[in-house]
C-alpha cells in the first residue's frame, strides 16, 4: 500500500513517527485522501472502482492507527460509508438496489462522487487563489509621495522665486540703511534712475522678457540696481511679473495700477541713491 507516485505518503514506511505526522497533515480530510487515491488510479472520478478505493482507504486508516496518529472522526465516517458501498456492490446483482430512479438520493455512491467532484473543483479554485496570492506579493501599487502635490503644487504659485528675491531686497534695504549706500552701490547707476528707465521702457514695449531687462547692463551693480528697481515697481504694481510655470521665463508687463502719485512713494529704494 505504499504510494507509488511519490505522493503524500511518500517515504512513510521507513520514516520516523514525526515524519508521518507531517505527511498525514497533507490530507485535509477524508475527501482529500480519497482524491489522492483517485489520482493514483489515473481514472476519471466518475469511473473509479469504488470497491478498490474503499479497500485502500480503509488500509490507510489502519496504517494511521497503527502509527498511533490521531484519526479524525471524519475519516472514520468516510470509512464506514465506503464499507457500506463495498458491501452493497459485493451483493449479487439481483439483490442490489434496483430502484435507482426513486432511491438515487440514498445511493451512497453518487453522493460520494458528487462530493468528490465538488471538492475537487474547490481544491482547484483554492490553487487558483493561491496563484493570485503569490502574484499579489509581486505587485506594488503606486504610492505617490504626499509632497508631490501638497507642497509643490499649491505652494509654488503662492511662493515663487519672486518672493525669495523680494526677501533679498528687504535684507539689502535694511543694510543700506545701516551701512549707507556707498558700500553697496559704487557704480554710476542708482536704483531710482533704473526705476525711471524701466518705466519708460514698459510704456514703449508693454511687455518684456525678464532677461531683456539686463541685456544692456555693463556691470554687476547695474544688474542689481535694475533688479531692485524692478522689484520696487512690482511692489508698487506699476510692473507685473508672471512666470507661467516653474521653469518658464518670467515676463514683465505693465501692472494694473499706473498710480502716478505713488511715484512719490518710491523713497524706500530711492533713498539708495548712489553717492557717485
Amino acid at each position, binding site marked *: 500500500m505504499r504510494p507509488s507516485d511519490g505522493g503524500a505518503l511518500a517515504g512513510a514506511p521507513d520514516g520516523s513517527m514525526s515524519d508521518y505526522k507531517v505527511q498525514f497533515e497533507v490530507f485535509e480530510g*477524508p475527501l482529500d485522501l480519497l482524491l489522492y487515491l483517485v489520482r493514483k488510479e489515473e481514472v476519471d472520478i466518475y469511473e473509479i472502482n469504488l470497491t478498490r478505493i474503499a479497500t485502500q482507504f480503509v488500509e490507510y486508516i489502519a496504517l494511521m492507527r497503527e502509527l498511533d496518529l490521531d484519526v479524525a472522526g471524519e475519516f472514520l465516517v468516510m470509512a464506514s460509508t465506503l464499507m457500506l458501498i463495498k458491501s452493497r456492490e459485493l451483493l449479487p446483482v439481483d439483490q442490489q438496489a434496483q430502484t435507482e430512479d426513486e432511491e438515487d438520493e440514498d445511493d451512497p455512491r453518487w453522493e460520494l462522487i458528487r462530493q468528490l467532484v*465538488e471538492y475537487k473543483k474547490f481544491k482547484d479554485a483554492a490553487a487558483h487563489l493561491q496563484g*493570485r496570492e503569490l502574484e499579489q506579493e509581486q*505587485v*506594488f*501599487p503606486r*504610492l505617490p509621495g*504626499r509632497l508631490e502635490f501638497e507642497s509643490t503644487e499649491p505652494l509654488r504659485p503662492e511662493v515663487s522665486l519672486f518672493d525669495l528675491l523680494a526677501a533679498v531686497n528687504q535684507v539689502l534695504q535694511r543694510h543700506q540703511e545701516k551701512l549707507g549706500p556707498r558700500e553697496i552701490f559704487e557704480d554710476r547707476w542708482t536704483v531710482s534712475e533704473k526705476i525711471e528707465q524701466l518705466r519708460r521702457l514698459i510704456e514703449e514695449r508693454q511687455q518684456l522678457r525678464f532677461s531683456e531687462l539686463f541685456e544692456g547692463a555693463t556691470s554687476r551693480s547695474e544688474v542689481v540696481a535694475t533688479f531692485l528697481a524692478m522689484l520696487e515697481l512690482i511692489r508698487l504694481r506699476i510692473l507685473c511679473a508672471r512666470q507661467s510655470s516653474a521653469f518658464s521665463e518670467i515676463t514683465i508687463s505693465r501692472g494694473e495700477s499706473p498710480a502716478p502719485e505713488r511715484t512719490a512713494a518710491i523713497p524706500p529704494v530711492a533713498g539708495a541713491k548712489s553717492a557717485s
Partner: protein
Amino acid sequence: MELKFILEVLLFSAQKALSPAELREALAAAAQEESETTGAFRRTKEPEIIAALEELAAYYEAAGRSYRLVCVAGAWQFVSKPDYAPWLRALVGHKARAPRLSQPALETLAIIAYRQPMTRSEIEQVRGVSVDGVMQTLLERGLVEATGRAEVVGRPMNYGTTPLFLEYFGLRNLEDLPAADELRRLPVERPAGLLTAEPGLATVPPSDLQEAPEAADQAKPIQEEPRRTTETPATQDEPGATVT
C-alpha cells in the same frame, strides 16, 4: 480637457485606490471651487467615469508599460506588473503582507467565495472536515465575515467574503473568480437517469438574485428540492431578523 486625463491624474496622484464614486465627488468638488474647465465635469455620471476608466486601463494594457491600471474591489489604482518585483523590492523593500494562507484556509475561502452566504456546517459538508480553526483564522484576518443568520433550524450564522478578500487576491469583484458560474451553480454533471438535488449546492449568490434574475431563473428548473427555499438567504442582511 478630457475626462480620461482628469481621472488619470487623480489616480496618478491619489494615496489610495479610488472608486468611481470618489472620482465623481472630486469632479464635483473641483467644479464648485473653480470655473470654466472644471465646471464642464460637474455632473459627470458614474457610468461615464467607469467607461473612461476602462478605456484608460485598455490604453495602458496596450501600451505595454511596466505598470497598469487595475480595479480591485471596486476601486481603481495604478500597480506595477509582477515581473518588476525584484527591482521594487530593492527600492522599497518587501511588501508588508500577512503570512500566506494555509491550504485548508485557501480551500475554505474558495468555498465561501463561490457559495456565499453559507453556514459553517454547509462549508464542512463540502470540505468533509471541521472548519472551526480555519474559520477562526479567516475571521481574524478579516477575509471572511458573518453576514447574518440563515433561515434554517437553529438559525446558524451565515458567512461571506469581505472587500479585503478581493483586495488580498487582487480581484475586481466576485465575478472575477475563475469559472464563477460553474462553481456557484450545480457543479456536478450526473449520469443520465439520475435525478437528484443536493441541499446547499444551488445557493445563488445574492448579486445574481438582484442583478441577474434570469441567471437565477436558469438555475431553477434543476432545483426541485423544496428544502432549497429554506436555504435561500432572503434576510441574510438583517441580523436578528426573526422567522415569521
